[in-house]
């Protein structure tokens, strides 16, 4: 394996075949030559990289609990500030948090909100695989409308998730964060650019990265890049950034593929192709279109 790639997160971790999380981590951490310290919420990344007595982390790493990665990094940041001031340490490290959507949209939202409001200097990266994948695929606040999950499965009386996902980007933006961006594991160059930008800014920054989960989205392990690409090409997952409140779209498809092209790649949406669920697909398409329109209008503002 490319030595540069494994400089901070080594090979030998135990993520599933076809998981994009290591690529996200390596791309973000590879975006800076400065030293980094990583805080990690409980989740897939954590359990697959730190099984005692091993660790895949070659940089200082802390996992505290599920809902408190942002509070944990707040402590690290305050410690760094005062120890630099007192001359007890000399070098300043970049502080990066990785959390899944469960640890960020749901159980960790309060801790994230507090850390953003206090203005600590750190980058929070949420890898969004749309559910609690580490515990076997339960529904989260990031699970898309219509997806079948273990805790809101499709059935005779159900088409899967009956509510729309949270718009976490808008929630974070409402904190007046200087820089936040939406990215996708299928476009690592774009992710790298955004990570670089985020890490250069002083104060809290945020990246929301789509991470197609081969296990729970149910697609072949060779396909995570192409599934992510379809998320972008159907405009399900537009790439954009918000810098000082100003929106920039990095990628939307002017001639988007119909949302079915994305949905049909995954077992979690299989039930939507039954005739009685046609309305769900129509609803998803409507939401996708409206979201792009909203973003386009935001850019014009």
């Amino acid at each position, binding site marked *: 394996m490319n030595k540069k790639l494994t400089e901070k997160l080594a090979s030998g971790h135990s993520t599933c075949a076809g998981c994009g999380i290591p690529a996200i981590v390596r791309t973000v951490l590879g975006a800076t030559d400065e*030293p980094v310290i990583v805080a990690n919420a409980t989740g897939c990344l954590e359990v697959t990289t730190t*099984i005692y*007595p091993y660790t895949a982390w070659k940089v200082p790493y*802390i996992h505290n609990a599920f809902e*408190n990665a942002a*509070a944990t990094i707040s*402590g*690290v940041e305050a*410690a760094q500030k005062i120890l630099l*001031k007192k001359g007890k340490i000399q070098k300043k490290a970049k502080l990066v948090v990785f959390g899944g959507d469960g640890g960020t949209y749901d159980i960790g939202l309060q801790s994230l909100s507090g850390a953003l409001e206090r203005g600590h200097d750190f980058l929070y990266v949420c890898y969004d695989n749309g559910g609690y994948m580490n515990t076997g695929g339960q529904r989260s606040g990031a699970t898309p409308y219509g997806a079948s999950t273990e805790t809101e499965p499709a059935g005779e009386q159900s088409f899967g998730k009956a509510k729309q996902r949270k718009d976490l980007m808008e929630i974070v933006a409402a904190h007046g964060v200087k820089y936040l961006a939406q990215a996708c594991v299928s476009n690592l160059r774009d992710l790298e650019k955004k990570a670089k930008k985020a890490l250069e800014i002083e104060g809290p920054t945020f990246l929301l990265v789509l991470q197609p989960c081969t296990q729970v989205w149910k697609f072949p392990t060779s396909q995570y890049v192409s599934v992510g690409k379809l998320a972008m090409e159907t405009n399900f997952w537009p790439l954009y950034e918000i810098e000082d409140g100003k929106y920039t779209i990095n990628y939307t498809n002017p001639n988007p593929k119909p949302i079915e092209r994305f949905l049909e790649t995954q077992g979690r949406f299989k039930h939507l192709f039954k005739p009685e669920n046609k309305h769900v697909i129509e609803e998803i398409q409507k939401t996708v279109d409206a979201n792009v329109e909203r973003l386009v209008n935001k850019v014009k503002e």
Partner: protein
Amino acid sequence: MIHKTYSIQNTKYNILALTGGAAAAEALRQMEPDVMAVYPITPQTPIIETFAKMKADGKVETEIIQVESEHSAMSAVVGAQAAGARTVTATSSQGLALMHEILYIAAGLRLPSLMYVSSRALSAPLNIHGEHGDVMAVRDSGWVQIFSENAQQAYDLGFIGLKLAEKTRYPVIAVMDGFHTSHTTERVEVLEDADAKEFVGEYSPEKYLLNLEDPISLGALALQNTYFEFKLDQEKGFSKIKNEYKKICSEFRKTSGRSYKLFDSYKLDDAKEAIVILGSTAGTAREVVDKLRDEGRKVGLLSIHLFRPFPYKEVGKELAHIKKIAVLDRAMSVGAYPPLYTEIVNSIYHATSRKIDIASYIYGLGGRDTFQKDIEKVFKDLEEGEISEKIKYLK
């Protein structure tokens, strides 16, 4: 603040009129913590308010993180302490309950933070007053617990607690009774800043996150093959705390002239009946002991400082000659005997095969005052042999 410096027999000290909360804040100032992560809650708030003012006046350098909950307070404490900073916090009641999950993590990661707790009742129903229900609910979390009786002890045991934490790498809770101690102004002898600084020393951890040359991974996943050993190690180290505590108490005596032990024994040597207690009510009980002694009764008092780890052997030995004991708990363990009573029964069971009558009393829940007459009633019960397996309540 009344402020006067005295010099007696070459020991210089200041005498201040402080509440327990302000005494704790003064101790924290002198410890010069790097980071304090804290969230307001009654009756803890005087500690952080006093400390925040000290910061505003440039008397401390500490980075204060004004977190959005106690859960985040304890989470930030873990982050800061792991990063290599001397880190402190303070809380009460619901706040301590909200921290519960992370208390185990701080202890499991062997992060030696100091936390002041102004103990208070837990909801429901809501009650903001003094009680030990909150600290008792976290007695198995792996934190050392040291109880104080008054503002002076709250001040002193904070120093002992911090040093004990950093020496043993176990976090420490220094407990004062909410309101009765935290909000009562008392005479407090305060160390000179330089003496305090010398006593606590520098915090220099061996491993810490901000040491970029030696990256560590903290918070690993330990499965069936290793978790058990981690817990055994934690227990093994914890059992050494008693001795360290004693050593640090004797160092503190040299610095302050004030002496602390695992517990305070009062007129126990020839006592036939005794009360065992935690916290501020010990003061009231001591008055009663004096009064009854004047009447010729052989009574005594044991007030416990170190509650975790519990000094079973020493307590057992101390009480082995007593005929009748009443254990007074300011906490309820619904459906079971209360916490201190259980520990005393255990201590005595292992110390002697002689039958000792031990009665359980619960008092002061939700901040209800306990008067001398209540304590006298307990001694009267003991004298008259009114001892059964039934828990009694001093209402």
